[in-house]
């Protein structure tokens, strides 16, 4: 049994069937890519997994516990982290503060009023935060305003914010979307390195085949709300159904 | 206890003049209070009055008129101008050379028609500018709030426009004095005139501003009219500043009432009267009688705001510039010459209050509040408009003629909006001081 199980999930928006009886089983420790043409339901699937959307029917289980009906912060506290298509960071805060917050969230839970101690006196939190910034290569910028970072650096920071929580599962929504070739490659390198160092289970939603084939252990192809093929990247490459799904997608 | 309230360098600090004056020593620490018998005892050659009037908000024009009157009063006290009512005031002790030999200076402030702001402004006058007397205001809430402040601080308060029974009733104070008339007196003065004009078989409908002044007026007018034999059909409270009163006016139409009494003041009165007239109330026949509207408290500024809708509508007022007694004529003449238009009742009451205070100081031979209180209590005077007047010792309320007025049908000018129907003598509106309760307490010199 995998770390994340999607069981018979259906989700419609008005008349549009976004997810049609989706089943998915993610093995712990793997990088699992979900690909498919626009409108295949990838993002909806991801939003169902993190609690942003509630499925019409079906369930999502994480380590055997249901995720459906829980709010995003509860799901995160269970060990699921999320990386957004456009990096979601605390743009008004410094890089260090950006990573201190998730560190605190792990130590103090979803709500603790700790209004008296100074943040900068919390040595263990700081050390962890600085260590993770070091590992993504942002240490020297730790006092900078994170809103001024380049897109690639924002992505690194966001990854750092996820990883510092030592999650069991990370969901990445098109982590290289809109990035330059150089930033994309840097991100791939970073993700690959992280996989070596931390070995966290990851689900990656992706368009860019280059990214998928560089990182993924397994790939699921979705079309029109349903997974159509699942296999290793090499198996997927040659599958005619995949070609058709993409070409068919072009027709649409 | 050491007195920290003593003024800091009055005269130098007047207004912002001191901003450039460099570092002035904080005299606030070098208190000389132990030497003074009373708060803010003037040590230089001037004595400071505090004119606390609404400069912003709905009553700003009334406040501006009050300020004009105050400035005129200061001129006259200091022997400038034509002297105004100083020529007619009887008895008169003032010399026309200031008060007790000191020139009168003044400081102004904005009450915003809010108790908080009014008290803050009055405190500044007392604490910073060294004012010995605070005067002004255009609503009872403010008057009562400032009056109790002056009592606590130990200066004299000469109320401006305030019409609630409470000011000299349950909230009266030894250090506070009111020249203006009140709701009870409005009722007492109006009732006989209404009876004569509209008969004794009438059904009245009250619309009342939903706050303390409105309630006291409603009660007073109700009592006075019911004593005539009128019946009160309904008394409805309306939110302050409602703007559109249509939802309160339409129920009047079919209520069976044949008189509408508007216990509103200021903008509320302007709006409710305008709208009531538009609803055709004055063209209506009910119970075989012509429907009538009554506005118990009138002011010229309100009449201006309501325009032609006031025509023929009865109400009461403290004073009107068309009065022909010597005092009124003298005041209207010097005010009109100075500013080009006649004074309002608020201006009159403020002018008179200033003169009365100054005269009381002169008579008492001191600015000490307790001395002034003594000089004003039970003081009888004449020649200030409204005929012979008594400052009653029991509640510090003035008793004098009350004017019943009617909206002028054919105004000859924009100021000629009200016509005096009757000058109701003081005896007719005098009441027993105990009926409104309250305690004057002791006078306070602030030391």
């Amino acid at each position, binding site marked *: 049994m995998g770390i994340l199980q999607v069981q018979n999930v259906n989700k419609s928006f008005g008349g549009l069937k976004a997810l049609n009886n989706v089943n998915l089983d993610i093995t712990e420790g793997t990088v699992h890519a979900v690909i498919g043409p626009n409108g295949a339901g990838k993002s909806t699937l991801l939003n169902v997994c*993190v609690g942003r959307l509630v499925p019409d029917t079906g369930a999502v289980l994480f380590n055997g516990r249901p995720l459906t009906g829980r*709010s*995003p*912060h509860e799901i995160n506290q269970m060990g699921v982290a999320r990386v957004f298509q456009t990096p*979601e*960071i*605390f*743009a008004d*805060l410094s890089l260090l*503060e950006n990573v201190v*917050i*998730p560190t*605190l*969230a792990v130590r103090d839970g979803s*709500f603790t*009023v700790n*209004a*008296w101690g*100074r*943040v900068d006196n*919390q040595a263990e939190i700081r050390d962890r935060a600085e260590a993770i910034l070091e590992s993504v290569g942002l240490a020297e910028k730790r*006092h*900078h*305003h994170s809103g001024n970072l380049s897109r690639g650096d924002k992505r690194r920071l966001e990854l750092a914010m996820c990883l510092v*929580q030592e999650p069991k599962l990370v969901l990445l929504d098109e982590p290289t979307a809109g990035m330059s070739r150089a930033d994309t490659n840097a991100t791939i390198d970073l993700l690959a390195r992280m996989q070596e160092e931390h070995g966290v289970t990851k689900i990656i939603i992706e368009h860019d085949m280059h990214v998928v084939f560089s990182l993924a252990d397994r790939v699921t192809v979705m079309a029109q709300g349903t997974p159509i093929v699942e296999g290793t990247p090499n198996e997927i490459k040659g599958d005619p159904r995949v070609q058709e799904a993409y070409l068919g997608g072009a027709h649409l | *206890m050491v*007195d920290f309230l003593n*003024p800091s*360098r009055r005269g130098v600090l*007047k*207004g*912002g003049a001191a*901003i450039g*004056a*460099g570092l002035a020593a*904080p005299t*606030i620490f070098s208190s000389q209070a132990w030497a003074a018998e009373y708060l803010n005892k003037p040590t230089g050659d001037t004595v400071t009055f505090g004119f606390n009037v609404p*400069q912003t908000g709905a009553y*700003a024009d009334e406040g501006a008129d009050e300020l004009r009157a105050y400035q005129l009063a200061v001129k006259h006290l200091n022997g400038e101008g034509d002297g105004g009512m100083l020529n007619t005031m009887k008895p008169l002790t003032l010399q026309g050379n200031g008060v007790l030999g000191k020139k009168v200076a003044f400081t*102004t*402030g*904005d009450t915003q028609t809010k108790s*908080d702001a009014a008290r*803050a402004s009055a*405190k500044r006058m007392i*604490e*910073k*500018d060294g004012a010995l007397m605070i005067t002004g205001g255009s*609503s009872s*809430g403010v008057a*009562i*709030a400032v009056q*109790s402040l002056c*009592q*606590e601080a130990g200066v004299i308060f000469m109320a401006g426009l305030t019409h609630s029974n*409470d000011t000299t009733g349950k909230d009266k104070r030894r250090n506070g004095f009111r020249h203006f008339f009140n709701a009870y007196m409005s009722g007492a003065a109006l009732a006989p005139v209404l009876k004569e004009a509209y008969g004794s078989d009438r059904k009245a409908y009250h619309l009342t501003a*939903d*706050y303390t002044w409105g309630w006291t007026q409603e009660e007073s007018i109700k009592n006075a009219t019911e004593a005539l034999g009128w019946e009160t059909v309904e008394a409805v409270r309306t939110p*302050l500043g409602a703007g559109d009163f249509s939802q309160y006016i339409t129920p009047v139409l079919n209520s069976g009432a044949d008189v509408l009494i508007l216990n509103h003041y200021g903008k509320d009165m302007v709006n409710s009267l305008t709208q009531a007239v538009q609803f055709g109330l004055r063209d209506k026949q009910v119970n075989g009688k012509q429907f009538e509207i009554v506005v118990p408290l009138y002011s010229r500024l309100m009449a201006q705001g309501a325009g032609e809708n006031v025509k023929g509508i009865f109400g009461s007022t403290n004073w009107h510039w068309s009065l022909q007694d010597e005092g009124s004529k003298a005041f209207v003449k010097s005010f009109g010459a100075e500013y080009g238009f006649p004074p309002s009742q608020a201006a009159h009451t403020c002018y008179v209050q200033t003169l009365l205070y100054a005269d009381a100081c002169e008579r008492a031979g001191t600015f000490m509040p307790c001395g002034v209180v003594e000089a004003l209590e039970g003081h009888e005077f004449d020649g200030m408009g409204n005929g012979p007047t008594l400052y009653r010792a029991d509640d510090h309320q003035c008793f004098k003629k009350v004017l019943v007025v009617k909206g002028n049908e054919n105004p000859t000018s924009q100021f000629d909006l009200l016509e005096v129907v009757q000058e109701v003598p003081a005896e007719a509106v005098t009441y027993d001081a105990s009926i409104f309760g309250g305690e004057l307490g*002791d006078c306070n010199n602030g030391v």
Partner: protein
Amino acid sequence: MTTPLATARSDLILFGAFTLAVLTMPIWLVPLGAGYPDLMQKFAIYGLFAIGFNILFGLTGYLSFGHAAFLGVGSYTAVWSFKLLGMNPVPALLLAILLSGLFAWVIGFVSLRRTGIYFSILTLAFAQMCYNLAYSVLTPITNGETGLRVLNSDPRALDHLTGQGVVDGPLVSNIFGLEMNGLPGFYFCAVWLLIGMYVSIRIFRSPFGLMLRAIKTNQTRLNYTGISTRPYALTAFVISGMYAGLAGALLCVTDPLAGAERMQWTASGEVVLMTILGGAGTLLGPVIGAGLIKYSENIFSAFHEQTLHDIFGFLPDGVEGVVVSVAGLFVGEGWHLTLGLLFMVIVIFLPGGLTSGVRQLVQMARRSSGGSGRSGGDAGTAPQAAE
């Protein structure tokens, strides 16, 4: 871009300087014409109000348009405490903080279900309901238009117990006979202002404060970081409501009268303006904004033609007349005009408020004097929105 870092030491220096400035107000305000007790009390009290408001608005970005309601609740509670318990300010303050906190909890609980302008309108609606009712049907509790005051006939149980029940002068709040008006009243408020400031500094630098700032920047991210944002925002709301209650109670300690206008939406708007004027999210800004607005309210409004003639008397006659009539538009009756123009100028040219304007000036001065801004800098957390 790096900004100067706020360390424990720099905060201590800031607080020390602030303390010094507050305690010496009776000296340095005199040449500005504001060195009299009532205005200084108002500076301290409204400073406290704005500091509290800033904990909500400056940190979380939730713009409450109904904070005056808590000020009013604090005031009424304090006066009722005077009436029932006695003139000692301590129980009055404690009760006021407690009750306004409770009020804030209820209103916050409901209002925080929405964000943005909806949150603002909800708080505004609650405050306006409080105001309208206090002015009219709740008069038995609030004494309506006239305002709630302490009367000699009130029970004042504790006073009578300690034999201070019979007072022949005015009833003034006092601690062991030291009356809370004049300068002692100012210092009493100043102590509370300092406590309030200190607490605010602690909150700003604490993990809790960091979470609040994170709410302002990116609530979505915070949710996906495992933080439940609403309880944080509610706590901030309650804390700032308690500050407002404390400020309201202090208003009554220095002057035992509570009026309903304190709850009007314009009063809520005033604290918003104070905070933004001085600089929302900064430590000192709200206090400076509060001071500026109270100063203009009390000093500009007191100018009249004669004072203007005194000021501009040095000019030649013709010029003086023109200058006085132009200046007259902005003071006295026209002080609102000055205030309105001030807001516009500040918002247009200094969106971060006065404190950010000062900071920009300092940075420009530094740059031009050749001291190139150090990058990196010493240890500590970073771009603190503070100075």
